[in-house]
């Protein structure tokens, strides 16, 4: 059994790792890199709490081998805040009361980022499809959808 030496780009930072090939990206993020914002839920790609962005697109880190994201840009929830300032989407979630237990929130916010990056004025239908891969057991999604609309509006207005 051998380890594979790889370099990963996580939130614009390069990490050199020596890992067994069967390690998932989720495991490596949480256990090797201490980035515990990304969560483990169902472990089989259905619940969405493990969602991260790879080259800007939401994917399931629990179903990705860490080896498989070499040379690609990985964004976790930790990568959204810049210079100690939270991202407008994070602020909108707080302002709109879209967070209860918070467990779905990192994945949900990353999906929201992908929705808004794709369309600065997403209609509700697009928002609903965009978060259809993120399950929330607390909120009933209403305020989450509102928060995404608010975030998009604020980003459009350059706030």
């Amino acid at each position, binding site marked *: 059994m051998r380890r594979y030496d790889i370099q990963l780009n996580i939130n614009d930072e390069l990490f050199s790792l020596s890992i067994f090939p069967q390690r998932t990206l989720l495991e490596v993020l949480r256990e090797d890199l201490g980035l515990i914002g990304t969560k483990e839920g169902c472990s089989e790609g259905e619940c969405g709490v493990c969602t991260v962005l790879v080259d800007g*697109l939401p994917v399931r880190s629990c179903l990705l081998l860490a080896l*498989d994201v070499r040379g690609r840009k990985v964004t976790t929830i930790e990568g959204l805040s810049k210079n100690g300032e939270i991202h407008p989407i994070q602020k909108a979630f707080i302002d709109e009361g879209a967070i209860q237990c918070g467990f779905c929130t990192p994945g949900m916010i990353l999906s929201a980022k992908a929705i808004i990056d794709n369309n600065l004025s997403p209609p509700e239908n697009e928002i609903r499809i965009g978060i259809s891969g993120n399950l929330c057991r607390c909120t009933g999604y209403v305020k989450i959808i509102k928060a995404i609309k608010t975030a998009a509006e604020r980003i459009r207005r350059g706030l």
Partner: protein
Amino acid sequence: MKYFEYIEPKDLKEACQFLNEYPEAKILAGGASLIVLLKNNLIRPSHLVNIKTIPGLNNIQWDGREGLKIGALNRHRDILFSPLINKYCPILSQAASKISSPPIRNMGTIGGNLCHGEPSADFPPALIALGAKLKLISTKGKRIVPIDEFFVDFYETILFRDEILIELIIPNLPPRTVGTYIKLDKTHNSIAIVGVAALIGIDEKGICTYIGVGLGGVAPTPIKIKRAEEILLGKKVEDSLLEQIAREAQAIVNPITNIYASDRYRKEMSYILTKRALKESFNNALKI
């Protein structure tokens, strides 16, 4: 997951050689299905051959003679948003929109979806209705297999263990051919209880120039309604003939009872949704 050796072939030839050399190797494409199997210890491959590193397997090209050629490594999202697919065979894009959720659509590939061999997958009924052909390759050469011969049994395809699905070919359809994919699921985009794809083509007189019907979730494999052509092709499309095809669907499906639905319900819904898909396709074709 159990340990495996990880390989990134630089081209198809190398990939085929690796698969030939390592009898216990498996192909890694999107991983949306494979990694789940690995995590549950349902498969324990010695090697994973990551074919995403091979260039040229995710093109989509239209060939005037042969039809639309779709690389097997196109992800569900690539199918969904492809201008060529939305132009020549939008039923495939419709099927893609019904698969799971955006993150899975961003990872999973159409090739992987087919090779996984799930009886209720969304692409197979649409591809069956389209009369798709599959190009397979190994160290022993290439072969072309019609889609309705590709599925052998529950999660089992006709692929040899060292064979790679590299391309799907959608033959050109007659003008004024319209398709509909209807998916009956318990929650949004969850696993299909019954999936029906129906494609109807008509000429100016309303005579059927094309008919293709595929169903998923109602048998150990996705199935084709073979008698549909006998019933409708070359005849004036009318409700009684669509009814016949829908009743044929109900007669030949062989569904199971599970936590989502009973076999009786699936049989009944095979009839209802086949009728509905046929009518919708026909009405949309009339509008062209």
